[in-house]
């Protein structure tokens, strides 16, 4: 996906003025948050399960070399072909090669955020493959020729009228304002594709090391379709998605649907292991897994390792007041919200995304809901410090900080400045608030007042009270 993270400020302002988007965002995130909270409250072991999941993931990451090697060995034993891509270019090359080698002309895809990182669809199209997104929201966006901009609900900004018009134009379907009818149209159309596609492409929610299995968690059923019916199945998955044992899976299944949308379980969980066995009436003859590094091994090495625990539930997005205000597109890449603000700079490089770690008040709501206990606010703080170290801060900010620290070094100097400011402030504002602050603080006073400095700072009052004279 094209990267545009440093335009966050401009895109955020645009998003704030987009009434349709604002309404949709409010409705969607409000619903997800309410459902998630209810689901967590209704499950007495929720907190214990979070702790368990966090520890399993940490153990896995601390020994990822062992677990990933085990996964590959087990997968290959059962007929799976495992590929490794170091970066996006390699991933695209491998994807195109697989499609050509397997003689695929039509592929049906269920959601994979990792594949968005490497512009997977374009790679396949370049190899002569028609690739159709089958997640309903992604399908709609694909027809509209738009980029998916939201992890949780790609078509969140589209009204049913707009969708009906798209279906009329691209699918030849009659206009309707019934949502069930629209869903039925997509179902019918995509069913035909599933039945004739040569390859099903999926992501992977979990990779089970002990058995070489790929786990897909969906509600629509399109993931299942793509992994049972076509001759070839290709799963595109980040290397960090490994969990050690099949017995660990229920722990994550207890957290993922609840955290994402407040469901105790999603409609479908598919655990797929290898190719069609002798005697199987259906199933892929060929199974490929494309493992993506794409910056993950570098993260593993450093202080941000725990970000790789993420199970892509989007709970942090839903609860983040900044995400709720501006939506996903403003973050300018695949991942948005708190996870995006940390992961994007780590995967694409901080200079390309330095605006993102600043897009937070550090309120901590995300850390409260993360099912695997990633310390997101700590990582945002760390990235802001990295930005300073890497010379990404404006000279103005650095000078202001140095000046501020310089004043704070001496209480006497601070007091002198406070007293002068107090006198001037009271004189100019006559006890009322300040309605216009100078740059760079002018943003505050666009819609808010700011108090004038007090005529007498507290430290002066205290001295008077103590009878200290100067």
């Amino acid at each position: 996906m094209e990267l545009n993270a440093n335009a966050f400020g401009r895109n955020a302002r645009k998003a704030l003025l987009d009434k349709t988007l604002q309404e949709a965002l409010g409705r969607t995130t409000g619903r997800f948050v309410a459902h998630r909270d209810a689901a967590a409250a209704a499950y007495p072991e929720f907190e214990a399960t979070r702790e368990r999941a966090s520890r399993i993931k940490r153990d896995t990451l601390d020994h990822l070399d062992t677990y990933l090697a085990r996964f590959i060995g087990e997968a290959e034993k059962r007929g799976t072909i495992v590929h490794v891509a170091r970066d996006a270019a390699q991933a695209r090359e491998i994807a195109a090669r697989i499609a050509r080698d397997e003689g695929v002309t039509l592929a049906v895809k269920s959601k994979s955020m990792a594949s968005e990182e490497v512009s997977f669809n374009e790679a396949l199209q370049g190899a002569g493959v028609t690739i159709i997104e089958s997640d309903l929201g992604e399908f709609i966006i694909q027809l509209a020729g738009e980029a998916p901009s939201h992890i949780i609900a790609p078509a969140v900004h589209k009204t049913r009228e707009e969708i009906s018009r798209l279906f009329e134009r691209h699918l030849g379907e009659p206009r309707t304002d019934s949502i069930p009818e629209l869903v039925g149209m997509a179902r019918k159309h995509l069913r035909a594709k599933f039945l004739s596609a040569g390859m099903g492409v999926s992501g992977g929610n979990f990779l089970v090391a002990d058995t070489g299995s790929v786990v897909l968690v969906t509600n629509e059923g399109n993931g299942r379709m793509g992994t049972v019916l076509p001759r070839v199945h290709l799963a595109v998955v980040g290397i960090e998605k490994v969990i050690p044992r099949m017995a660990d899976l229920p722990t994550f299944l207890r957290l993922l649907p609840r955290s994402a949308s407040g469901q105790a379980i999603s409609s479908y969980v598919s655990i797929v292991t290898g190719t069609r066995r002798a005697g199987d009436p259906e199933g892929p003859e060929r199974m490929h897994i494309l493992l993506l590094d794409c910056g993950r091994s570098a993260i593993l090495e450093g202080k941000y390792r725990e970000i790789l625990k993420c199970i892509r539930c989007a709970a942090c997005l839903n609860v983040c007041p900044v995400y709720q205000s501006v939506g996903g597109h403003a973050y300018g890449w695949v991942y948005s919200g708190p996870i995006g603000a940390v992961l994007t700079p780590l995967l694409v490089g901080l200079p390309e995304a330095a605006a993102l770690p600043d897009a937070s008040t550090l309120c901590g709501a995300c850390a409260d809901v993360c099912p695997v206990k990633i310390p997101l606010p700590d990582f945002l703080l760390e990235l802001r410090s990295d930005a300073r170290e890497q010379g990404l801060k404006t000279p103005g900010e650095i000078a202001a900080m140095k000046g501020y620290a310089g004043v704070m070094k001496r209480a006497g100097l601070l007091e002198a400045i406070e007293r002068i400011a107090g006198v001037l402030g009271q004189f100019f504002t006559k006890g009322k608030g300040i309605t216009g602050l100078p740059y760079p603080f002018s943003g505050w006073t666009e819609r808010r007042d700011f108090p004038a400095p007090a005529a007498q700072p507290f430290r002066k009052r205290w001295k008077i009270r103590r009878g200290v004279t100067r």
Partner: protein
Amino acid sequence: MTYTTRMDPKGPIPVSLFFTCLADAFSPGVCSATVEVLERFGATVRVPLSQTCCGQPAFNSGNRKEARAMSRKFLLSFPDDGYIVTPSGSCAAMVKHGYPVLFRDEPRTLARARAVGERIYELSQFLVDVLGVTDPKSDFSGKVTYHDSCHLRRGLGVVEAPRKLLRAIPGVEFVEMEESDRCCGFGGVFSVKYPQISCKMTERKVERILATGASYVTAGDLGCLLNIGGLISRIGYPVKAIHLAEILAGGTGGLSSFAADAASEDTRPPGTVRRAGGR
């Protein structure tokens, strides 16, 4: 007056006041109110005047070099024993949680930071958890709602203490707002870096406040109150932002600095309006 078992009932309770640079300069009434409340419950309050700033704005914006400079000075400004009490949840959280990060590569300063961190409290937390106060003995009156500032609630885990104190004041009609723990949009430098997003969040907070019908919104963080109060003042909503310390101390009025900026309806009960510069 109640005492915890930890204290010597006969002796004074030594407290150093950490009055915060923001309150010092813009809302000194908050500092005075904090002293008044502490002294009411048996504290002997010292005010080390060499203190300036805990370094939070520099730390939060990633400028750790400057933050460390201010933090070292902070650590030197306070005595080696006794409690340190501050009317700011975010400043207490900065010392407790931010300092160990700042000094993770400096073992000696780290040790001192940890030792200081163990003795630092936000005001309501100190009153309830350490002094065992159940009734603040305040004559404040009015309908009050409470905003859970992020660092006080999530950083320090202080949720019930302010509510217990507010509910115990006879003249206070306490009402919970919806989304009391939702961020108000201040976030320090965020409010200036992304003011439009910040304002949107503040507007939502003010909507929730107005929905309660309260005359006052209070919190344990001045930054939040200046943010919320700044929007209220600009539009002229019939509600005043007042710091928790000032409610606990008693009396009437809004934040000293906005005192003269009356809303269209005079919702203040009769009483003195505290003006900056005098007590």
